[in-house]
């Protein structure tokens, strides 16, 4: 390998770019007169009107968020402090709804199992979704194929949520469902597994399948933005596949991981439909508890449960952003 003609390791001290010259050249370039902003006319830049333009542009969004998000939340918080009556509620301030809830063992058991379900869903979607997004974004070379395969990956979304959820219950899962029958026929198991019926396991499996696209999509878009030549540069500088992945790909994918995790966490925490259908009424979650309270016209109790769910969501989102130091990457 080493032959006598190989040059000595570079004598770094000897080699020194004559920087003053380069700096000088750059300084000259940077001193180019700035474009005349005034020539563009009013409205842009620092004019007094720009505040109004910004406000006008933001207004529709603000109204939307105010009407559909802030106002309902405020109402729910208000209702959660009102007194429950047979007719619904009256506007007498009380903290009884919350103190009742804090001592409600069932509610906290459900909160715990819902959080566990959500964490499992986030982790499973990340582990299962990452290879798919990685393949689509970095291994598929032609843009046309990329888009085609991505649309195929989105195909389950073309059917309604309920159809998909029900498809999970009877045909696929269940004691006599396709999954059990297949495993028995293949002699992988001798007896049908009862957990494939209405069970927590079924609910969790169904959730992973139903929501995984909310992970794949942001991952795909962030991975597609990773500079391929940076990946080549890493390989070139001596990184093997794992080194390249860990040092170059993963850090640049962090925003996608965070956004996907928040999607999955929020969606599964609040999920009511999957639990109700795939769980077949045997399984409860915070979502189904709230639903049954509303069904029983216990609006203040339902509102208090919902407020605590929102608090739990906020804590969860905060933990996710902390874990990833999103702010640093943005």
């Amino acid at each position, binding site marked *: 390998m080493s032959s006598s003609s190989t*040059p*000595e390791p570079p004598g770094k001290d000897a080699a020194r770019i004559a920087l003053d010259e*380069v700096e000088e050249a750059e300084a000259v370039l940077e001193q180019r007169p700035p474009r005349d902003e005034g020539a563009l006319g009013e409205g842009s830049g620092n004019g007094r009107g720009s505040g109004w333009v910004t406000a006008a542009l933001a207004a529709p969004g603000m109204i939307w968020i105010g009407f559909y998000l802030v106002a309902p939340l405020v109402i729910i918080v208000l209702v959660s402090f009102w007194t429950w009556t047979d007719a619904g509620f009256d506007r007498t301030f009380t903290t009884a709804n919350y103190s009742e809830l804090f001592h409600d063992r069932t509610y906290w058991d459900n909160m715990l199992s819902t959080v566990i379900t959500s964490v499992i869903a986030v982790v499973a979607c990340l582990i299962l979704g990452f290879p798919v997004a990685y393949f689509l974004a970095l291994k598929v070379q032609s843009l046309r194929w990329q888009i085609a395969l991505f649309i195929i990956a989105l195909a389950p979304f073309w059917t309604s949520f309920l159809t998909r959820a029900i498809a999970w219950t009877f045909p696929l899962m269940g004691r006599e469902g396709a999954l059990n029958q297949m495993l028995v026929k293949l002699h992988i198991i001798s007896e049908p597994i009862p957990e494939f019926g209405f069970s927590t396991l079924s609910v969790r499996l169904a959730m992973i399948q139903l929501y995984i696209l909310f992970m794949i999509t942001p991952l795909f878009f962030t991975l597609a933005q990773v500079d391929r030549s940076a990946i080549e540069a890493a390989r070139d500088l001596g990184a093997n596949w794992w080194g390249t992945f860990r040092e170059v790909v993963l850090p640049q994918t962090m925003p996608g991981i965070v956004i996907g995790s928040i999607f999955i966490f929020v969606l599964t925490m609040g999920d009511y439909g999957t639990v109700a259908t795939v769980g077949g009424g045997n399984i409860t979650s915070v979502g189904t508890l709230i639903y049954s309270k509303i069904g029983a016209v216990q609006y203040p109790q339902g509102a208090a449960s919902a407020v605590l769910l929102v608090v739990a969501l906020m804590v969860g989102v905060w933990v996710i952003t902390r874990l990833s130091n999103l702010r640093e990457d943005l």
Partner: protein
Amino acid sequence: MEEQGSDSGGAAGAAPPTGQSGLDLIGLTKVFPGGTVAVDDVNLHVDHGEYVVLLGPSGCGKTTTLRMIGGHEFPSQGAILLDGESLVGLPPHKRPTTTVFQHFALFPHRTTLQNVEFGLKMHGVGKGERRETAMKALEMVGLVPLADRKPSELSGGQQQRVALARVLVTKPKALLLDEPLGDLDRLLQLRMRVELRNLQRQLGLMFIHVTHNQEEALSMADRIVVMNDARIQQVADPLTIATKPATEVVARFMGDNNILRGVVTAQEGDRLIVEDEAEHLRFSVRSSEARPVGSTAMIAIRAAAVTVEANGASDGPNSAECEIVFVEFLGDLVKLHLVAGSERMLAKVGAEHYPALRGREGEKIRISWKEEDVQLLDA
């Protein structure tokens, strides 16, 4: 087509080629799926310490050749040997080569220092040592004060220097540069040519530089490899490439050449007389190879070798009466666009001739050139 060119001009610290030392490309060929031949039977030897520029229009195969040396593309055929050992089959991270990529390819989420450290980290160098080495490299390129900045906070020239420091810390045997100056402003490009070449001389490293810019190649290279259409057209030192293009393609690509097709009308010893088809222009040229009278011949004369005669006196070969089509003033020189019969001619003369030439479009003028400036192109 073309074997190795003439000896390189003064590569610093390079040992003479022993047949084993240096980089050898042997019959290197790349056929892309779909049948496009990107690189066709390229043979080249590069010595350690030599600065070689691969020059050609886009799509000529120069970048693919470079990527095959770096391991980012696998050859369909042929061999790549570095100091006698085959590189084919080795992934990029196992090759003693590193690449400066076209758009620098810095890691956007890492600081300048972390970018430079990267190669050492991947080679398992301890934290203290790699920090020290990286800081030395940053000192070399003058970026110590910016060690904690992210690439997005650096100017183009600074990013370029980070990219250089990042590859140099890995102590490659050959540095591959893919259009390294392409992203820089023109003024900075001119400065970086000099700096890059000085750096290479001081390091005594083999640099292989890809560009489509003729001027850049001429100003930086020990040896230029002109490529076109997947093949090597000519390998020679910059002076030879500029003044003695071997083929029509090279003559056209280098620009400002008068390229004319004619017929050999006479041969006296090693002197050929070539006339263009309209029998308006006559050239005499010395040629070591015999060309039969009546055969067609392509000749090239640099525009800069064409001079303007004060008076239309001589009427021998290597001079012609032309009509001035356009006088183009370029600051330090004047380009004269001329027509001789049916042939367009281009002459480049010093700016001092401009006052005498200004506004003379449509008039006749006599031009001439020296016999040694007439270049007979390969048939």
